[in-house]
């Protein structure tokens, strides 16, 4: 890996780490959901620091370029995360519907009194 790529990757990792810290501190995002960005920054750090290890894994899997391994890993990771978010959205929308119905009924019973 070239030095410029390493620096760019490290900057990227630091950026995600700062975003993670800021979001959690501001309570804009729950720690569970921001965990992805924390993991991504750690992953990028690992790629830069343990470059040889990733090359070794890539050789083991007969992947010519170690960067493909990383890209494939990131795509898989993101897909799993999107699936997780889809489940959460489905659960949340059911709860919202339940709340909307209850609020409407309560409002009516309050007006009737």
């Amino acid at each position: 890996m070239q030095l410029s790529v390493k620096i760019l990757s490290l900057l990227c990792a630091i950026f995600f780490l700062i975003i993670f810290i800021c979001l959690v501190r501001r309570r804009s995002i729950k720690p569970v959901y921001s965990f992805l960005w924390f993991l991504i920054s750690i992953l990028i750090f690992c790629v830069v620091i343990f470059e040889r290890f990733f090359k070794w894994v890539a050789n083991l899997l007969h992947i010519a370029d170690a960067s493909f391994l990383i890209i494939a890993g990131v795509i898989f990771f993101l897909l799993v995360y999107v699936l997780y978010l889809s489940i959460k959205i489905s659960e949340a929308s059911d709860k919202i519907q339940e709340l909307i119905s209850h609020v409407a009924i309560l409002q009516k019973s309050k007006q009737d009194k």
Partner: protein
Amino acid sequence: MKILTVISNFNEEKSIERCLLDFNENATIESDLLVIDNASTDQSINLIKKRKVAFLQHPVNTGGSSGVIKTALLYSCMYEYDVYCHLDGDCQHNADELATLIQPIIDKKANIVVGSRFLHKKGFQSFFIRRLGIFSYSYIVSRITGQKITDLTSGFRAYDKKAIRFFAKQYQHEFDPCIQMLLIASFAGLILKEVPVRMNPRCAGRSEIGIIQAFKFPILGAMHIIGIILQKNNIRRLRCS
């Protein structure tokens, strides 16, 4: 028998008054009337208030009619109604056919009754492309459930106490009342029945089934069928509990 008739309303300012008038003058059953407004942005809610009709207002729009049905089922369950009838606020359904609609429930021959425009082929029959979609999916749903369904998109329906109690708990957000609901009802052991009714074309406004919906319907329909078949055993367990 305690009966509730629900009229759903979403921006139906041009038709809601006619619909309420139709119910007051022509309803063939003794029933409480409740209008459920899905957070309309037009003048329809003021027109409902003027008529001094009981109404519920969703604080936010729930998208489509499924949210209104959920609220209606929950309300019917909470206030222990024996039958819940549903009419759309666009004057497509006739209040003078409510007695026909609930008759199978009174006779204890069905838990859910659907008013079908295709049984006697009277009144508004919808457009060709839509009819094709309805016929195809009605056939598939009939084959799966073993119960004859000809008009699965009909919103003119009646639910008995058993169906009300079941769906008040199981009805989820963005639940599809056409395919999903009928399949779940069938797997849960509820008896479906259709009765012939006349339907009118919308007297004003636009249908929620637009061009995008026309493309979405067959795709989502297939997804709903696959999803419900996969859930079949869980639904049967719900019936046991």
